[in-house]
């Protein structure tokens, strides 16, 4: 299963990976620790996390996750 990009919220300060996992109701082992918790809009309290490849999210809505598309450089046209 591909990695899911998800958003978590905490009113003051960045959440820890454990806090993010509890909010998402999943084991912290399912979250990609190398990605960690990334600030999206700290003033609004929003941060991004990513699940590990192969993590089971069978109980989660497919509508929760955000696209993580491929990006390429706009160098010499092919």
């Amino acid at each position, binding site marked *: 299963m591909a*990695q899911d*990009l998800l*958003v978590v919220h905490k009113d003051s300060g960045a959440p820890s990976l454990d806090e993010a996992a509890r909010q998402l109701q999943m084991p912290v082992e399912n979250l990609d620790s*190398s*990605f960690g918790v*990334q*600030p*999206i*809009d*700290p*003033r609004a309290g*929003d941060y*991004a996390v*990513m699940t590990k490849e192969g993590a089971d999210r069978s109980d989660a809505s497919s*509508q*929760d*996750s*955000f*696209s*993580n*598309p*491929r*990006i*390429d*450089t*706009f*160098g*010499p*046209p*092919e």
Partner: protein
Amino acid sequence: MVAVPVLFVTSDTPQVIGGARALTMQVAPAHNAPPPVGNIAAHLEQQSGLSSLRLDADYAPVPTSTTAAMQVMTMGAAPNQIGPTAFAVRGTIDDSEIGSAGNIVDANGDPKIFADPRIGVSLTCGSDPPVGNTLDVRKHLGVGRLQNLSMDGSRTAIAIVDNGINLDALRSLGLRPKLDVASSWSPRVGIIAGAAPVGHGTMCAYDALIAAPKATLLDYSVLQSTRAGGLSMSGLLSDAILAYGKLLLLMALAPEERQFHSLVVNNSWGMYSWRWDFPAGHPGRYGDNPLHPFNRQVATLSASGADILFAAGNCGPICPDSRCDRPPVEPIINGANSHPDVITVAGVDTNRSLVGYSSHGPGALYPDKPDISAYTHFLGSEALGTGKADSGTSAACPVLAGVVAALRSQYAFDPALLQRSPSNVKQFILSCAVQPSGPSGWRNDLGHGIVDTNGFAAAHAIA
């Protein structure tokens, strides 16, 4: 099967002459006169022996000689006087019959079917050799004038979010680049800032230093594909999210804790195809969704004071990259490349002509994209190979990033001064841009025009 345009020569039969006269001179056929060309198409299609030949009924047969032209102009002129090549008509055949078309000959053994190639204005495309060089870019940008105004990138940082910078390569070109290693970053262990293989990121760094030779580079080496068979210049958007997370932390530091007062962020990458994204309507989609985490991060970083630039893309209508959607799916400029808070950069060559691969607007997140054009396809870093152009809108973007950094070296970002906001500085730069022809104002190919620094000496709007 693909329909291939062709030209078909045919005899001066009454039908053909009548058809030419009816369409060209808008003369209604006389009673009992031959039918218009639309009804002779079937006859010619049968005559050719090609099952896929379809004639364009709205294209008047063209006389190939003065005699044939007189037959059209003169009522009652005798037909069948000239021969099998008297007139030319156009149509299409399937590409599977191109070979057979070569065997269709007239009584003299001459071919009857010819290619009808596409023609157009000759714009610089990807495989074309470089147009001009770095000196031409410097001249167009007025780098000498900028340096006389002490606009040289001093005390500014340019983050190259790309596949890494090679400092030695830049030094070998006579540059004296500065790199802030502590403020640089890569998601992959073992990647040393400033020591990446020479390539796209080095090209971008070189191009950014053209107008801002004293700027400090930040190496954000994120486009390092680990997918099997992936190009080294690929990545995932999540890598950019990581990079922007670091940049947000950098901008959160107090000014005295940073080595620069202004940050310019160069992004010469994007999402080529809508097929790479979630489907239309999905709430998690990226390309047209301002609520996507990365699009929100861009807004946050801009609000923190960073000037953010994105390349417009290489999906222009004349010679798009092979990775672009075919047929094109609009809007072509998508995701953060179309964000209202960024400067979206199209490409012109040093002849000040739009390059054929530069993406046209509108943008998905903001319609009036691109914002402005800058120079590309010139002989510069040769980081992509000896004699190869710094090209793509990838090169245009850092050329402009350098101009922004040069401006910032005199008009530093200051959160207490509203006139120094990224939005206001962007508007000032756009107001100085010049359209190479036609009226001023925004266009969906060049934006507000080509970057022009003539007005930088009187930057009252951001002073």
